[in-house]
């Protein structure tokens, strides 16, 4: 997409679609047509259900007593926000998301810096490190619950046994940390891969120049590497947040939402799947959306800055 676009004016310019005279309205629809199936499909399958959720959230509606259904205004929202258990699940969601994203970003950065150097078997180490991200999430959660955390025969306590350490019951003692640790293990490789791509796109000549001028490794890291990595860190945080805010698999598998680890998605699942409280579940679902919009507002700014560069380069 560089300056080679010397074709006649009929050529579609990638950045600025050519302005067509109004008479070619038919042609306009012809260019739009390929887009329509995907657009219509997405609106029907994702936007309509959300609108329905919004409507249901204003009704007092238990699926076991369908005849008692009635409009209740913001009643469900009041209940969600005043119910200590639900309020706690909001807090749990925040703790879980922030904790996992920050920890996996920091670990991922450390690993990316290690892997950015040349050493024997770098490819093998990279493959070993990626593996946790590729295990099916439910399988990974089962692995942590039964194979690692189990107080009687889990690997963690097995290894502690060799050094004469204590034999804690991990999930009972620190339930939220136990869930977070398994998620950090799964997401660190992802952060590492993004940051590694960032590191490898640095300007090597500039780094060499700084080194020749006498800059220490630390100075190069702080003044050159970190500023360059900023957008990659933001991208990792954004994508990690989108997925971890919605995490269901780990919470469902490791603790079944018990011991204060129920996050909002799990609570929504439980309140309609087990308690049949359709109205409450919908209100909680809408609250998850509001939380996501807050993240997304930040997110879109990041993505659009990435995006602007791409367009600018075209």
């Amino acid at each position, binding site marked *: 997409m560089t300056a080679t676009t010397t074709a006649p004016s009929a*050529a579609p310019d990638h950045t600025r679609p050519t302005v067509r005279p109004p008479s070619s309205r038919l042609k306009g629809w012809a260019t739009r047509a390929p887009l329509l199936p995907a657009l219509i499909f997405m609106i029907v399958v994702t936007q309509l259900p959300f609108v329905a959720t919004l409507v249901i959230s204003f009704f007092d509606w238990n699926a076991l007593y369908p005849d008692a259904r009635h409009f209740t205004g913001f009643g469900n929202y009041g209940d969600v926000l005043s119910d200590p258990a639900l309020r706690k699940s909001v807090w749990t969601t925040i703790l879980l998301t922030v904790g996992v994203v920050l920890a996996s970003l920091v670990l991922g950065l450390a690993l990316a810096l290690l892997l950015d150097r040349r050493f024997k078997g770098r490819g093998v180490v990279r493959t070993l490190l990626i593996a946790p991200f590729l295990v099916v999430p439910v399988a990974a959660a089962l692995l942590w619950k039964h194979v690692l955390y189990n107080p009687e*025969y889990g690997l963690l306590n097995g290894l502690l046994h060799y050094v004469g350490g204590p034999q804690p019951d991990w999930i009972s003692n620190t339930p939220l940390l136990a869930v977070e640790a398994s998620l950090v293990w799964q997401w660190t490789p992802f952060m590492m891969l993004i940051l590694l791509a960032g590191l490898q*796109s640095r300007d090597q000549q500039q780094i060499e120049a700084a080194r020749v001028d006498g800059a220490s490794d630390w100075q190069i890291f702080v003044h050159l590497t970190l*500023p360059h990595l900023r957008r990659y860190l933001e991208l990792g945080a954004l994508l990690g947040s989108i997925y971890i805010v919605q995490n269901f698999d780990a919470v469902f*598998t490791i603790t079944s939402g018990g011991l204060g680890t129920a996050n909002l998605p799990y609570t929504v699942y439980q309140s309609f799947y087990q308690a049949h409280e359709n109205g409450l579940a919908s209100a909680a679902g809408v609250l998850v959306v509001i939380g996501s919009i807050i993240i997304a507002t930040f997110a879109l700014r990041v993505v659009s800055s990435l995006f602007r560069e791409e367009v600018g380069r075209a």
Partner: protein
Amino acid sequence: MSATAVRPATTATTGTTGAKPARARRKAGAGLGLVAWLAGIVFFLPIAWMALTSFHSEEDAATNPPSFAASLTLDGYREFFGAGGGASPWPALINSAVASIASTLFVLVLALPAAYALSIRPVKKWTDVLFFFLSTKMLPVVAGLLPIYLFAKNTDMLDNIWLLVLLYTSMNLPIAVWMMQSFLAEVPVAIIEAARVDGARLPTILARVVAPIALPGIAATSLICFIFSWNELLFARVLTGVVAETAPVFLTGFITSQGLFLAKVCAASLVISLPVLAAGFAAQDKLVQGLSLGAVK
């Protein structure tokens, strides 16, 4: 992609400490290589241990301290595939394969024309359309779960694998449109114009000019859609039951299982993760490029 981020090199030169001698740096490098190896082993250890345990007998699997040298057996795998009278995982594995492959095909059918309209012959305001697709990804799954459940219940679509196919298509379509837009945008317009001047028609141009350049990107997109569909639990858990159960739902049957079935749990987890592990190892670079929506090149 660094224009705004990098400060002038001169700020780094004001430091007082000089560069380390080359030999010291090389020595530190070897040490850090060792640290990297150690980190790789620590991260891989749970998976290696899971693999080893899956080949142990149930008695050897559930011991403390762990038995590293216990004899190996395929009993865990035999048990998992239903030899012990338990439910066979085959229907669930087949359901997962159907849901993942069919939804990936649907995504391609819908996303390819859309990406074409957003990159090669861009419609007006094509960036807005692209952002709309991305924004649907930020709508949490739970926000639409209940209406979808009620709809399925009233139309007898519950426990029907094609409902999952439909939902997985919508789950992956935005990512696919975004990725393919960025892959198709790499096809130089000049080549397409040249082909047109030579008298080639649209199908020929797509097959001869666009496809060869975009094919690796299309493959990566398909791979990511397949992985996300294969891994999905929440929709499958809520909307399927006996007939349309998928592999992750089958795995949730092990959540409360006790020590006696540890080898079986490990075998099950490994078998069900195998397609994703194989696909992911084969396409490591494409994977991260795809997951970061093509933003990281």
